[in-house]
């Protein structure tokens, strides 16, 4: 790696103030710290530091998302060939189609998001923050595959600027940036975000695949089917567990999500308290809805297990609710926060006819309440301290 080091050292002066490329200083800085762990040593305070830093933390989350990503690619291809009535597509054909379909979304998400981050870092003369590494991969996984790329680009730009940069960047945002991207799309372009044509790609990807819809194929997600056509609903919890069903790319397969959850929990990056309590809340609300099942709200007919396996619930529980920045930060707060996300997700899904899925809105809603929950938990500590002072 000596050659690379020498090369980086050689071009370094151009990026410093006064150099030809000084406008790209933070980009150079980002690249340098990406390639080589900085040699800076501690100036004040402790003399030794743990090896873990934000880069490692974020990259671990990205690794946890890889199973979902691979499964998403396979499933996009699977749904595509099923939709056009090709029965004998091989595994690799499906995977290739999914790869070609998803790759542009990933590229758009990273280019737009990181581009804005770089500009922001340069304006503030700060180091580039790693937060978008995770957001950038979450966005392609939660945006329906048929969303036009320009919409994804606009939504990503909106989310990064208005949900993150104006609050001060990574670590300062109130709402989950990836979910703001999706919420923006959801409310700005509703026709592209739900319905039967959103979730299964029929057109070709870079000229590969493509065809006409086979007879009798609808392309509706299981939850869409529940809402509109419950008599014909046939998806079992097992189908949802494996994940070969229509839906947003990352959310369909419970297996992939659970592998990701295992990585996050073993490494200790995500809070098990949040994850556990989201599922607890979802199951509790699912059971309650199921106990009072009625035709008016067809989703209440689903049993609680199927309920949490379907839609974006599990994905939101594992990857969205556990975002430490936008979630509750106290231990007790995390239980409350997670539980309420679970409850609201199912509540919206079952009793709000307008939205077949509630996970996104539930997480965003609780993002807004997380500081309040923490405030109350911390206030208990404050009151205890105040009381202790008075007694003596």
């Amino acid at each position: 790696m000596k050659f690379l080091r020498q090369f980086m050292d050689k071009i370094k002066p151009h990026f410093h103030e006064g150099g030809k490329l000084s406008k790209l200083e933070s980009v150079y800085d980002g690249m340098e710290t990406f390639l080589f762990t900085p040699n800076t040593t501690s100036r004040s305070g402790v003399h030794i530091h743990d090896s873990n830093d934000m880069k490692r933390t974020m990259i671990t989350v990205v690794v946890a998302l890889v199973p979902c990503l691979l499964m998403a690619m396979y499933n996009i291809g699977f749904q595509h060939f099923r939709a056009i009535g090709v029965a004998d597509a091989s595994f690799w054909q499906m995977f290739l189609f999914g790869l070609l379909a998803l790759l542009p979304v990933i590229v758009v998400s990273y280019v737009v998001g990181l581009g804005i981050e770089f500009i922001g870092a340069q304006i503030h003369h700060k180091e580039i923050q790693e937060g978008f590494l995770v957001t950038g991969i979450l966005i392609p996984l939660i945006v329906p595959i048929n969303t036009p790329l320009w919409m994804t680009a606009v939504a990503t730009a909106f989310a990064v600027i208005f949900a993150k940069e104006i609050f001060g960047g990574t670590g300062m945002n109130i709402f989950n940036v990836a979910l703001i991207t999706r919420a923006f799309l959801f409310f700005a372009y509703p026709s592209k975000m739900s319905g039967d044509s959103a979730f299964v790609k029929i057109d070709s990807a870079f000229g590969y695949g493509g065809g006409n819809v086979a007879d009798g194929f609808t392309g509706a997600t299981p939850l869409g089917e529940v809402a509109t056509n419950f008599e014909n609903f046939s998806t079992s919890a097992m189908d949802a567990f494996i994940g070969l069903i229509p839906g947003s790319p990352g959310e369909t397969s419970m297996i992939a999500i659970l592998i990701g959850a295992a990585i996050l929990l073993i490494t200790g990056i995500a809070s098990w308290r949040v994850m556990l309590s989201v599922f607890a809340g979802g199951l509790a609300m699912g059971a309650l809805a199921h106990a009072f099942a009625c035709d008016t709200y067809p989703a209440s007919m689903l049993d609680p297990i199927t309920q949490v396996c379907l839609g974006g619930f599990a994905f939101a529980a594992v990857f969205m609710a556990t975002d430490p920045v936008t979630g509750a930060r106290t231990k007790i707060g995390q239980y409350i926060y997670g539980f309420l996300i679970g409850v609201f997700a199912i509540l919206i899904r079952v009793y709000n006819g307008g939205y077949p899925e509630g996970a996104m809105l539930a997480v965003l809603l609780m993002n807004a309440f997380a500081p309040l929950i923490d405030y109350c938990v911390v206030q208990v500590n404050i009151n205890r301290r105040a009381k202790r002072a008075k007694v003596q």
Partner: protein
Amino acid sequence: MALIKLKKGFDLNLKGQIKQENVADEVTATSYAIIPDDFTGLTPRMEKKPGEHVAAGEPLYHDKNDEKVKVTSPVSGIVKDVVRGERRKIMAVVVTPDGSNDNKRFDTKATPKELLLESGLWAMIRQRPYDIVPSSEVRPRDIFITAFDSAPLAPQLKLVMGDNEKHVAKAVEVLSTMTSGKVYLGCPKDYTIDNTGAEVNTFVGPHPAGNAGVQVANVKPVNKGEVVWTLDVVTAARIGKLFNTGTVDYSTTVALTGSGFIEPTYVKATMGCSLESLLNGRLVSDDKDKRIIAGNVLTGVKESIDGYLHAPYRHITVINEINKKDEFMGWASLSPKKYSIYRVFTSWLMGRHKEVDLDAKLNGGERAIVMSGEYDRMLPMDIYSEFLIKAIIAFDIDKMEQLGIYEVAPEDFALAEFADTSKLELQRIVREGLDKMRAEMC
């Protein structure tokens, strides 16, 4: 006697532990120094000029705002230099011994307070809130003596005291006349000092169990408006000896630890001793740069070979400045050599308590606080440390008070600073918070 079990915190197992308990012969240095920055809260005003003779135990300077609080010379000799830094701030007062062995004798009949102030041992005590040298006006609620240092590679205070352990009982007797409350002694599991008259609490658990602040918080926390004193058992033994014999004894045993030593060992020396004489011939000599730390790796002060043994420490740690330069894509490393207390590196599979040789590298850049609960895991106190840190950064006085700033000292956050993914300088933040708070309150 109570047994207090602490779960939070972490015991780092660093390379360079002392293997045997032998104490090497006394090191005599050609110069000794007092560093005013070690006595937080005091503004020095010199009593001795360069060239003047000073006896061991005679004041070098006193506090500008509280003239009774004095800092005394550890050895008898000539005041060689008053080193000044920016804006004429006094950085060090250097004394060269002249071989006179002139020990100032104190009248043990004087009141305990006068004797402590006059002898300079008062300045070795710290008070909560603010973690400063106590004001001579305030009577503390309680006094806490800690009998062990739980920091990485820290010396056993029992060995540091040696024969002087017998004076601890006297110190407790004297100190209990100075407080309206009790004198508490915080002991580790395997070592207690009996029959001192102090209320003994045994602390079981990882570092920072030995921190005075942690012990106070788990016995009887400091409330707003209250003052407690904290000191370690070595200082207590010195106080006892002063009242028993009438002289101040600044001799001590120093632990030389860390991967930078050929053989980590204990050595006899006197407070303020120059590092050159202490380290001479003991360091591993290779090309790698060394970081010399007066104190432990968490709270110590970075020093050069021209530096001195700082008054509060009986501990020198030497580690490598950088083990491996220009590490390629360190964040993606799968190497078990990358040590972390988290399970994000493969090193946890080898055991997190395995001996490691850590360098001074920051291992990342400073970021906003992202991960939650990291600080709380390292601080066994009933405090929401992350919220407190945020209140300090925002300088929200009410919130700082409510969240318990009076109970903490920078050293309590040292382990959290080590573990922080965001690489924030927590000890500096807390110190500045305490200083600003004190300026606001006084």
